[in-house]
Every structure is written in structure tokens, then in C-alpha cells.
């Protein structure tokens, strides 16, 4: 059967991974290319790169880094951050991205989702949503979680899928950074609202949090996290082994003697 996916997320500014890393054996711990290669080697099922650069120079560096990563890492690569136009899609896809994640850009112009889905296929368009509880409602926030859009998250997600988004990344602002587990209540509501894959983000603090996520909500397809991986708090091979032993379907790569084969 299809496996649950474990996805590390790398925030990249001016060509460097923003959150500090504590990996031994890496020549350059802030190099996105090296970190991506390490995660891939450790069995990450997919990688997400967020470009948090503001300048156009930084953006050029980002595309270069993407190209270099994609030429060394052979697992699916999703790119997000500042995607507002079809040209942005084009730029990152040409550098080796497989999927493009839209957030504020799609809130400003929802047609971006349908245009991109039409041009590149729904499998290529990931709708990333930052949501938070406000007045008993799951509310969409834009601009990195700073601005209340007053949109209902479930309605927005349904609309996004209707326009052609092929996957949803749900980042709960309420649980993000708290490290006490994913936002199961919000995720459950999203899984019930749409039929496309749902990726949980925000709140992972331990291996048990992933176990609880996948066991409580069979509809969630993947767990995404950043700092717990970057700080070496949880190693991806340990996490996947742990989940596998708990009966959750994981891709565990077996290496033949020649170092080949999955």
C-alpha cells in the first residue's frame, strides 16, 4: 500500500537555510543543497523549499540552488514562497521543481490555481494554507501568518481544490512552534472537506506526534516539519523506523551491497 510521507521543509534566504542546523558531517550546515542531499539520503520522501528572500538577487540565487539540488536529489521537490504568477511557476519548474506551492499569491488571485493546474496539471499545484482559530472559526491568514484574511479556511480549501489544487498543506498557526503535536481537530475538518492529499504541518515535537497524527487521522497523507529535523532533535531514519514499528506504512530503503536498489 501507499506509504505515509515524511517531508522536511527548508526555509531558504539568500541561498542559505535559515534555521540553524546541528548536523555533524556536513561541510556546510547552512547549504540547502547539502542538507537536501543528506535528507534524501536519510530517506525523506519529499522535500519542500520555501524561498523567503525578498530581493531579486536573492531570488536568482534561490533558482541556482534549486537547479543544483534538483540535479543531485532524486525525490519529489516542492517549491514555495513568493509564487504569484504563472511566470513564477515556470521559473521554478524549469529548475527542477516537481510541484509548486502557492499561498498568499493564490489568495490575491485565486485564478492562479486554475491557470497553473491547466498548464501544468493539478499534481503540480499545492495549496498551502496558514490557518488559525478566530471566533470559533478556522480562519485563513496571509503574508506568513501576519494578516487575517477573514476567509473561512475550509471554504477556501474547498474552493482551491475546485480550482485545481492537487494537494493541501495545512499549517496550523495555533500549534506551530509549540511542539506539542499537530492540530488534529483542524486537520480532521480539512480531511473531511476535500478528497485530495492533505499534508499536516505545524506542531511536531516528537516521534509520537507523528504516530498520533497518522493513527488518529488516516486521511492525512504526510507530515511536514522543519526545526525538529534541522536541529537534529529527530533523525528521519529513526522516525521512519519508529513509525514502521508502530504499524504505519513507511518507505524504508534497503541497500544492496553495491549500494544500489531500493
Amino acid at each position, binding site marked *: 500500500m501507499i*506509504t505515509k510521507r515524511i517531508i522536511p521543509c527548508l526555509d531558504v534566504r539568500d541561498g542559505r537555510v535559515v534555521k540553524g542546523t546541528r548536523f555533524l558531517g556536513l561541510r556546510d550546515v547552512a547549504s540547502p543543497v547539502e542538507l537536501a542531499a543528506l535528507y534524501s539520503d536519510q530517506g525523506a*520522501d519529499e522535500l519542500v523549499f520555501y524561498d523567503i528572500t525578498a530581493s531579486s538577487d536573492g531570488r536568482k540565487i534561490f533558482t541556482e540552488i534549486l*537547479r543544483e539540488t534538483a540535479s543531485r536529489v532524486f525525490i519529489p521537490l516542492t517549491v514555495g514562497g513568493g509564487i504569484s504568477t504563472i511566470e513564477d511557476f515556470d521559473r521554478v519548474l524549469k529548475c527542477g521543481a516537481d510541484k509548486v506551492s502557492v499561498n498568499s499569491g493564490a489568495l490575491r488571485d485565486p485564478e492562479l490555481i486554475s491557470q497553473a493546474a491547466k498548464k501544468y496539471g493539478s499534481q503540480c499545484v499545492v495549496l498551502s494554507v496558514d490557518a488559525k482559530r478566530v471566533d470559533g472559526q478556522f480562519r485563513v491568514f496571509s503574508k506568513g501568518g501576519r494578516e487575517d484574511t477573514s476567509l473561512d479556511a475550509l471554504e477556501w480549501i474547498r474552493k482551491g481544490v475546485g480550482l485545481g489544487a492537487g494537494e493541501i498543506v495545512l499549517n496550523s498557526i495555533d500549534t506551530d512552534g509549540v511542539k506539542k503535536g499537530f492540530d488534529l481537530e483542524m486537520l480532521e475538518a480539512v480531511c473531511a472537506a476535500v478528497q485530495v492529499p492533505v499534508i499536516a504541518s505545524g506542531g511536531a515535537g516528537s516521534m509520537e506526534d507523528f504516530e498520533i497524527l497518522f493513527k488518529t487521522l488516516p486521511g492525512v497523507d504526510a507530515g511536514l516539519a522543519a526545526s525538529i529535523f534541522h536541529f537534529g532533535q529527530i533523525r528521519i531514519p529513526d522516525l521512519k523506523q519508529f513509525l514502521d514499528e508502530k504499524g504505519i506504512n513507511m518507505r524504508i*530503503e534497503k541497500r544492496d551491497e553495491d549500494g544500489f536498489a531500493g
Partner: protein
Amino acid sequence: MITIIDYGVGNLFSLKSSLQAIHVEAQVTADMDTIVHADKIILPGVGAFGDAAKKLRQTGLDKIAVERASEGIPLLGICVGMQLLFERSHEFGVHPGLGLIPGEVKPIRETISSELKIPQIGWNQLQMIQKEHPLFRYLRDGAYVYFVHSYHAVTPREYVLARTDYGGLLTAAVARENVMGCQFHPEKSGRAGLAILKAFAEL
């Protein structure tokens, strides 16, 4: 040298890079002369079958691919490129394919249980039917590979190299003599994918 046919469908960057990573020379081209002289061909493809088939025909590369395949050179179709090898597809109407392998491309919905999500997106295991096939030379049964698809090939068992279980058995890899195909993306399937590309390059 592997020749990757570029007919304007999908992103060939990863495919070319993955071949480079295993030290296999590859060229991406739409040039007829080059393809006529190719000794190994990869036919890629993403998106809808009808669009891909139309684009391949418009370039005239469909005829060359069929000619070269019938001359016996190894041909590997990937994803929609694999689907194009069959007689026809039922994706948004009925569209003819290259007819190199008997069979049809049908919605996976007809095979799998109804509560599962479509498309199948993610890593799933290969269940090999023909373990001794040269394409699997470096690969173990049960290896995980990366799928993104809503349709799959329905073909006689003799052409099925491997299947995958997504609440029902789906066709994952096929072959008829020198014509081969993978529904999954070897260029996105980590070591397992590279193992398949390496085996193809050595045919």
C-alpha cells in the same frame, strides 16, 4: 547514449540529471535525425493522454518512435510516456496511442476501492511479476517507487512486469520485448529509480 524525446510535454530536467548521476550519457532532443540514429530511447510524458498524444503526432516523432521500436532498439516510456505505448486511452474521451503493446489505459477508479484518493500520489511498492526481467537487474522485489497517476494500463498479464497495490492491483511496469514502460517516475524514486535507469542504460 540515451536519447530522451522532447515533444514539449513535461519537465525533463530531473530525468536528464538522474541519468547524469549514474554516469549515463543522455541527450534531450526533438530532432528527427538524432532520434532516427538513437540506440536507446526514453519517451517521457506528464499531463493528459490526449494532449500528449496530439503533441507527439504534431511533431511527427510518433512515427519515428514506432519505427525505431520495431527495429528492436530499447524504448522506455515513463508515466504518460508509458501509457502512450498502448493501443488507446479512455482519459477524457478515447484517444489512440502508439499500439506497441496490446492493451488500454483506463481510470484506476475502476480497479480500486472507492474511498481511496485519486490521483494516487506517493510512494508505493512494486510487486514483481517478472522478477528476472533485465530492467529489474538491480532492483529487489518490494522496492518503493514514486507514483502520480489517475489512469493505468489494462493489459494481458504476459506484458506486466510489476504491479502495485492501491486498494486494488494497478499496472506499474510493462514490457513487450524491447518496448518497456514505467507508470511511476524512476527519476523521482530515489535509489530504486536510479537502479531501473541504470539497468535500462545497460540493455
